[in-house]
C-alpha cells in the first residue's frame, strides 16, 4: 500500500480511547533515498539532517568486544543492507508522528527521556546500539550494562535487561511493521550477566497477523558460548498519524 501522501486515517478497533495524542512536531523527509511505503517509515525514523545527539555511537566506556562488533556491523551497513539506528534522548525526537487520537495526554512533563537513555553519564547506564536488516526483518543489539544497572552484586539487574530487550523489540517492531505498544513479553533467564560485559541480542520478526507482530530474541555472549536469555514479544500495530501543520 503506497502511502506517500501520509494518510491520516487510523485503524484502531477496540483500542480507541486508551491512547493519547501528544503534540509532536513531525520530522518529515519525503524526498529520501528510499522509494516504497515501508521506506517512508524509515525516512521518518532516520532523519537525514539533525542536530540531535546520537547516543548510539562509540565512546570511551565501550569495551573492546563492543567496539569490535560495532565495526563488523558498520561494515555490514555498507555491504549487506543493514542499517544502524540512531538513538536520541527522547522517543519524541525519533517518531515525527502522533499516536492515534483519543484521550489527550498532556505533555507538560518537562524533560522526558526514553527509558534506555535515562542515564546520560557515559558508561554508567545503558550503552547500546541497534542494527536492523529490513530485508530479513532481523535486528542485533549490542548492549553493555553499566554500574547503575546493578541487580545482584556485580551482575546486571534482570529488569534492566528486560528493558533493553523491550526497547530493541520496540524499535524492530516499529520498523518492521509499525508496531507501537508491547502486548506481551516473556523472558527466560539462563545465566547472570556480569557488569560491564557485552551482551549480543539477536532478534527476529516471526509472523505478522491480526495487527500483531511476533518477535523472538536470544541474548548471548560475543563468542556465543553463553546464552543469557531467550525471550519473545508481541507488539500491537498501529498506523500513526501525521500531525497537521499549524
Amino acid at each position, binding site marked *: 500500500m503506497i502511502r506517500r501522501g501520509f494518510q491520516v486515517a487510523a485503524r484502531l478497533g477496540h483500542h480507541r480511547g486508551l491512547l493519547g495524542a501528544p503534540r509532536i512536531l513531525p520530522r518529515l523527509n519525503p524526498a529520501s533515498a528510499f522509494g516504497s511505503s515501508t521506506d517512508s517509515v524509515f525516512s521518518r525514523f532516520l532523519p537525514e539532517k539533525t542536530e540531535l545527539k546520537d547516543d548510539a555511537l562509540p565512546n570511551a566506556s565501550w569495551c573492546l568486544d563492543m567496539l569490535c562488533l560495532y565495526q563488523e556491523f558498520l561494515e555490514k551497513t555498507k555491504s549487506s543492507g543493514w542499517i544502524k539506528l540512531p538513538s536520541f534522548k*527522547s522517543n519524541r525526537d525519533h517518531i515525527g508522528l502522533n499516536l492515534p487520537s483519543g484521550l489527550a495526554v498532556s505533555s507538560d512533563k518537562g524533560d522526558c527521556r*526514553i527509558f534506555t537513555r*535515562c542515564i546520560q553519564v557515559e558508561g554508567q547506564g545503558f550503552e547500546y546500539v541497534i542494527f536492523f536488516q529490513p530485508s530479513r526483518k532481523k535486528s542485533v543489539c549490542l548492549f553493555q550494562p553499566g554500574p*547503575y*544497572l*546493578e541487580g545482584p552484586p556485580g551482575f546486571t539487574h534482570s529488569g534492566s535487561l528486560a528493558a533493553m530487550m523491550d526497547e530493541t523489540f520496540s524499535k524492530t517492531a516499529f520498523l518492521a511493521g509499525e508496531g507501537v505498544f508491547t502486548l506481551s*513479553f516473556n523472558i527466560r*533467564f539462563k545465566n*547472570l550477566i556480569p557488569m560491564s560485559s557485552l551482551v549480543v541480542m539477536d532478534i527476529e520478526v516471526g509472523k505478522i497477523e491480526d495487527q500483531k507482530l511476533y518477535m523472538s530474541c536470544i541474548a548471548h555472549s560475543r563468542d556465543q558460548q553463553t546464552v543469557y536469555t531467550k525471550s519473545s514479544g508481541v507488539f500491537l500495530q498501529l498506523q500513526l498519524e501525521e500531525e497537521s501543520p499549524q
Partner: protein
Amino acid sequence: RSFSSEEVILKDYSVPNPSWNKDLRLLFDQFMEKCEDGSWKRLPSYKRIPAEKIQDFKTHLLGRNPKFVKEEQLSQTQLFTRSFDDGLGFEYVMFYSDVEKRMVCLFQGGPYLEGPPGFVHGGAIATMIDSTVGMCALMAGGVVVTANLNINYKRPIPLCSVVMINSQLDKVEGRKFFVSCNVQSVDEKTLYSEATSIFIKLNPAKSLT
C-alpha cells in the same frame, strides 16, 4: 538482627519526598495504617545493598562464576531502580504481608522512564514488576534470581501516574518460587498489566538451569 555501620548511614528511599504526588502519598498513608498492627511491614530501600547481604550473594554466586566480583566495581555500582534523582525515575515503596505472602508496590513512574510519548516504557514496567515479584520471592526463599518473567500489557500507563503492583506467592516447588502479580490503578478500576514469574533459590556452586 544486627546492622553493619554502613547501613546506619544509608538513606532509605522508600519514604515520601517532594516529588510524590497526592495519590502516592494517600496510598502510602493507607498502607502505613495497615502496618500499625504488625500484619504489614514497610520495606526500607537503599541505593546500595548493605555489606552483609553482599556477603550472602558472594557465597552463592562465586561457585558459579570463577570471576571474583571486584571490590572497586562494587563501589561504583548502585541499585538500578535507585539511580535517579527525586521524581525523575522510579518512585516507589513496598509493603509486605507475611501472613498473606503478598508484596504490594506503590509506584510512580517519572519522565525519565518514557516509552511511547506520554506513557511509561514497557521495560520500566517490566523492571518494577521484576523488582516486586522478586522481593516477594526473596522474603519467602532468601537468595533468589529471576528464571522466568511473563508479562501481559493490557493498557499503557500514563507517565507520572501512580499504580499498585500487587504480587502473591502462588506456590513453591523445590527451589522454584512461583509469583504472580497485577498492576492496577489507585482506585483498582483499571488493570494495566498482569504477570507471572518463576524465581530460583540459589544453591552455592549449582547452575541456574
